[in-house]
């Protein structure tokens, strides 16, 4: 009897808690099911797949670290790795400097400031395929307006002018220029937010101390923007290592293929998985990419803590 009444008393309390939990899970479920099936599951599968040999026609075979060992002597992959690194080393500082410069310029009270901001931000949202198409025409080595203008101004014959995307020496330069042009507006907006977060009293104090514009930039603006710069840099490094569509659209040609001077990591993954159907080997490349991005992210976590403290 006593037990029964106790049970009765507690029963609604337990079911209320369970009900609350169930309600909470019902909120999460629609997103979580999709997330678990289409992100978490393949993510776990990726690591396992990198230890397999599988071309989808023959049965899966466990090969241990063979795929990774093969990577170390794969000339194409090493080439892709070094191209991606060169691209990153070029894009990160140039984008950083250009977007900071733009932000400072467009933070000043000028007429038509809103218009300038719109104009610099638009390439970031505009579709890459169209932009790359124009870019390829404008930088066409033998007929494009850029070389025509260079030829007209300097008098250097077309054969001696840079062959831009079509040449080994200038391809990397061309893609870096394009990437900076397309993306600097985005990072400019982040910098603008950072600039507006600086306490104006700091500038007033600097003025009272007799600092000129350059000194204020060096001793107030730059240090105050350090967390923003750090964040922008990390974002840029990560997105540069994941680069693919810019290279394919600028250099892919009619066959959508990249050569030794333009291949990048993600292209190599795509090619190995979806053209050669070597899923296991492609996954080992993907894991290498993952390790690179993870390392950069960990550096960011440590740095963020330093800035927050």
């Amino acid at each position: 009897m006593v037990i029964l009444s106790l049970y009765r008393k507690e029963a609604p309390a337990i079911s209320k808690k369970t009900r609350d939990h169930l309600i909470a899970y019902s909120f999460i479920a629609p997103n979580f099911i999709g997330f678990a099936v289409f992100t978490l599951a393949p993510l776990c599968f990726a690591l396992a797949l990198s230890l397999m040999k599988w071309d989808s026609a023959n049965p899966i075979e466990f090969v241990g670290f063979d795929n990774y060992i093969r990577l170390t002597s794969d000339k194409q992959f090493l080439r892709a790795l070094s191209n991606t690194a060169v691209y990153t080393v070029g894009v990160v500082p140039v984008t950083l400097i250009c977007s900071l410069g733009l932000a400072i310029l467009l933070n000043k009270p000028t007429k038509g400031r809103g218009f300038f901001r719109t104009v610099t931000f638009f390439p970031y949202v505009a579709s890459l395929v169209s932009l790359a198409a124009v870019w390829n025409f404008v930088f066409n080595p033998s007929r494009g307006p850029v070389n025509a203008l260079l030829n007209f101004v300097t008098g250097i014959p077309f054969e001696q002018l840079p062959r831009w995307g079509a040449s080994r020496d200038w391809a990397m330069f061309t893609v870096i220029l394009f990437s900076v042009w397309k993306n600097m507006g985005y990072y400019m907006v982040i910098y603008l937010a950072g600039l507006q977060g600086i306490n104006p009293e700091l500038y007033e104090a600097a003025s009272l101390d007799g600092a000129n514009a350059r000194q204020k930039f060096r001793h107030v603006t730059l240090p105050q923007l350090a967390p923003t710069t750090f964040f922008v840099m990390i974002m840029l490094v990560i997105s540069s290592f994941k680069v693919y569509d810019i290279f394919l659209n600028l250099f892919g040609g009619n066959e959508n293929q990249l050569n030794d001077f333009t291949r990048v990591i993600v292209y190599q993954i795509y090619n190995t998985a979806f053209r050669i159907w070597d899923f296991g080997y492609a996954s080992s490349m993907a894991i290498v990419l993952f390790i690179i991005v993870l390392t950069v992210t960990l550096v960011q976590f440590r740095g963020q803590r330093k800035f927050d403290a």
Partner: protein
Amino acid sequence: MSDITLKQRRTIRPGRIFLYLLLLLLTCAMILPFVWMLSSSLKLNKDVFTFPMQWIPENPRWANFSDIWQRIPLLTFVFNTIKLSVIVTVLQVVTSSFAAYAFAKLRFKGRNALFLGYVATIAVPWQTYMVPQFIMMRQFGLNNSHLAIICLQAFSAFGVFMMRQFYMGIPDDLCEAARIDGLTEYGIWARIMVPLSKPAVSTLVIFTFVNTWNDFLGPQIYLIRTELKTIQIGLRMLISQYTSEYGLIMAASVVTLIPILVIFLSLQKYFVQGVATAGLKG
């Protein structure tokens, strides 16, 4: 006093002129490729590369804009892209804001662990697991279908994270008061959280929409059949097939840029706010 202002004005002026010159130069660098695109889209192929350049074509060839609809199924591509972008955006915003409410305002077992799982995957590039994802989709029979793109785009961890951060800023008292007034949790979400989170929702809508619209690698992997293609890979197909149809390619490029331009110009405020907050919070 007036002496000082006069002096200031005099010293500022050359700087001002330089500033505006710089801005003008910058604007040219940003805009000229677009102007060139528009101008070339109205030219015959043989006139595209004439030098000195003719910015306003003498005999604008409007036929380029009618020809492209016949050369490639551009209308189908536009329709596919709109369909995918709208479905993905709606799914993404509804499911993430739904899940974010539980993460921000409800207590349940495993909340923190689950949320940590979400956050951790934000840092993982999609390219890492796109191969196993493809194998899975193929097992489900989803390759070469729009459903594949919808499934892989609609449930991103980033949306949940962003909405949750916004909901954390809404005071708990508000929900508590609503509970006392007899609203269910679903009611609180629909009547209080959703209306209050308009800025976050609009940011998420824009970013998801533009990302889906401009996505390249996803459609390249999954949408092989021509009638399934989106504008991006459809345009890419046109460029590879008709390499030297310069006018036509430019006309198609102009057409594909117009919707994004309209969306961008009308919602620019939210774009800028979104980048700024996402950027600052990291």
